[in-house]
C-alpha cells in the first residue's frame, strides 16, 4: 500500500487547506479514501455521529502535481484511512508560505500520513516542517460502510439562500430551542421554524428557485405550494453551516419529508454532500 502526492502551487495548496479546514469543522474524525483519480473525506452515519453523514469528493488532478497510489491489492485499488481531521488542517496551516507540500503514507512506529512542507525562507537555506499524523488503516471488511451514500428521491429540491445568512439565523435560533423545523416547497420558498411554549419564530426565504425535476412522474399533480418538512436537531444543522466558510458555487437542499435533509454543495471543484437525519 503506497500513497504519495505533491502540491507545488500556492493556489492549490490554499484550496486544499480550505477543504481540510472545512472537514475539520464538520467532523472530528473522518475517513480519507484514496483512489487513483479522487480523494474522499467520509463520515459514515453511525450512532456516534448522531446519524449525520458526509461525503466530500475532489479530483486529485485539480490539486496535486504528482499523485501515486497503490491500494490494498490490485482488485481493491483503494486506501481507507481514519484520521483526526484537525491534525490534517493543523499540518496544512503551516504550509501557508510553502514552496512545496508532500503527503505520503509512512510507518513510523505506527501508520502515519506524513505531511512535509518546504517553507519559503529569506536566506538561501530552506526550512522543512514535517508532521506525522497518526492514522488507522481501515480493513477491507469495513469498506462497505463507507461507500457513497445513495440519495433517496427527495420530496422537495430547492436552492439554498446565502449560507452565511442561514448560519446567523440558526445561531440565534439555537439560543431558543434545540428543535428546528426546516421546510421547503417547489415554489422556491424555504422556512426555518422553532417553537417553544413562549415563542414561535419563523424565518422565511423566498424566490430561491428549484432545480428542474429529475423525473417526470415526480409531481405534475403535486401542489407546488405544499411544504415538505423535517424536524432536526439544530446543533447538527449549525455544525454544517459553520463549516462553510465561503459561499459555494452551487448549494442545493433535498428534503425527504420527515426523514432527512440532504445538502448538496459544490465549492469550486470540490463536492460536499451532507445528510442530517430527522429527529426521531
Amino acid at each position, binding site marked *: 500500500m*503506497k500513497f504519495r502526492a505533491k502540491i507545488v502551487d500556492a493556489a492549490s495548496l490554499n484550496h486544499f487547506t480550505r477543504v481540510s479546514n472545512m472537514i475539520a469543522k464538520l467532523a472530528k474524525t473522518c475517513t480519507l479514501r484514496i483512489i487513483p483519480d479522487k480523494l474522499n473525506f467520509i463520515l459514515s452515519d453511525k450512532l456516534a455521529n448522531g446519524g449525520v453523514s458526509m461525503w466530500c469528493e475532489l479530483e486529485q488532478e485539480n490539486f496535486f502535481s504528482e499523485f501515486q497510489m497503490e491500494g490494498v491489492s490490485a482488485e481493491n485499488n483503494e486506501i481507507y484511512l481514519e484520521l483526526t481531521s484537525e491534525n490534517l488542517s493543523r*499540518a496544512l496551516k503551516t504550509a501557508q508560505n510553502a514552496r512545496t507540500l508532500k503527503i505520503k503514507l509512512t510507518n513510523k512506529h505506527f501508520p502515519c500520513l506524513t505531511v512535509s512542507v518546504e517553507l519559503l525562507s529569506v536566506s538561501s537555506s*530552506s526550512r522543512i516542517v514535517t*508532521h506525522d499524523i497518526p492514522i488507522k*488503516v481501515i*480493513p477491507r471488511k469495513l469498506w462497505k460502510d463507507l461507500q457513497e451514500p445513495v440519495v433517496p428521491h427527495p420530496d422537495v429540491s430547492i436552492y439554498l439562500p446565502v449560507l452565511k445568512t442561514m448560519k446567523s439565523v440558526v445561531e440565534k435560533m439555537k439560543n431558543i430551542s434545540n428543535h428546528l423545523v426546516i421546510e421547503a416547497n417547489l415554489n422556491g420558498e424555504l422556512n426555518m421554524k422553532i417553537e417553544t411554549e413562549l415563542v414561535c419564530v419563523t424565518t422565511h426565504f423566498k424566490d430561491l428557485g428549484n432545480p428542474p425535476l429529475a423525473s417526470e412522474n415526480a409531481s405534475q399533480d403535486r401542489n407546488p405550494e405544499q411544504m415538505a418538512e423535517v424536524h432536526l436537531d439544530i446543533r447538527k444543522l449549525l455544525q454544517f453551516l459553520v463549516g462553510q466558510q465561503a459561499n459555494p458555487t452551487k448549494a442545493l437542499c433535498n428534503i425527504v419529508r420527515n426523514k432527512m435533509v440532504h445538502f448538496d454543495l459544490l465549492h469550486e471543484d470540490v463536492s460536499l454532500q451532507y445528510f442530517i437525519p430527522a429527529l426521531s
Partner: protein
Amino acid sequence: VQSFLSVFRSLAMLERTVEKCCISLNSRNSRLVVQLHCKYGVRKTHNLSFQDCESLQAVFDPASCPHMLHAPARVLGEAVLPFPPALAEVTLGIGHGHRVILRSYQEEEADSTVKTMMTEMSIGEEDFQQLQAQEGVAVTFCLKEFRGLLSFAESANLNLSIHFDAPGRPAIFTIKDSLLDAHFVLATLSETDPHSKDLGSPEPAPQLQDYSTPHLDDFANDDIDSYMIAMETTTGGESSRALPSVSLSPGPQPSHSPDPHSEEEDEAEPSTVPGTPPPKKFRSLFFGSILAPVHSPQGPSPVLAEDSEGEG
C-alpha cells in the same frame, strides 16, 4: 509578579501620561512603593505588599556547556510556530547535514491507543550566526517556557544564545543588549533510567541523527507494506477496527539498529526513540532568570532542587 505587572499593564497609557516612575522600598510596612508621576500633576501610588523569602541561587555556567547556538530570536520564534499550542515539551538537537531540529516531544504511554501528531522543524545551519554542536546531540525542555522567553527576545529584537550539554544538564538561554543581560535556565530531560527498560542496555535520549530529515528530492520507499501484510492477516477474522498494536510496540527492532548514515533510513522511523518513556528526572534546578519571563512557569512539575531541604 502579577501585582507588579498590573501597575504597568497599559503600555500605551504609560507612554502617553507618565513622566517619571519612582520605585522604593518601605521596609517598615513591608511595602514596595511604585509611584507614577504623571502629566498634569497626577500622581499614582501603588503599594504592593511583599514578603521576604529565601532566594535560590542557581548554579550554572554557560561557558561550561559544550554545545551552543546563536541566532536572532526571530529565527527560533518562527521555528516554534508549527507546534501545537498545548505541546508541553520540545526536543532541540542537531540532525543530518548539521541542520538544527526542533521536534515535539511526546511522553508515550505504553498502553495509550491514542497517538498524537508529531511535528518536526528543520532549520539549515546558515540561519544561525553560530553553531557549535555535533550531529546527534539533543536535549528536551519545556516548550511553554521557551516560547515565553522567545517572545520577550523577539519583541526586543535581540539575539539569543542557547548553551546546552548532555540531557539532564540545564540548558541556558541568554539574551543581551545594552540595557539588560538575561539568563534563562531550563531543566532538560535526563537519559532513561536503565532499570525502567527491559531491553537490556539503557537507550540514550533521542538521537537526532537517526531522525528522518526529509530530503528535498523525491520520496524513498515507504515502509507501510510489511505493516499492511501483518495487519491484513491479523484482522482477517475480526470486525473490530482496532489496530494490532502488539505488532507495533517498539520491541527489539533488528532491522533498525543504529546506523545513522544509511541512506535507506532517510524516511524510516526514528529507530532509537525509546518505547517506554524516559522518566522525567529533572535533576537540575529549574530556575527563572533575574528577568523572569512574562509567563509564569507552568512547565514540568514538580521542580526538584538538588540537596533541597525538606521540599517534596
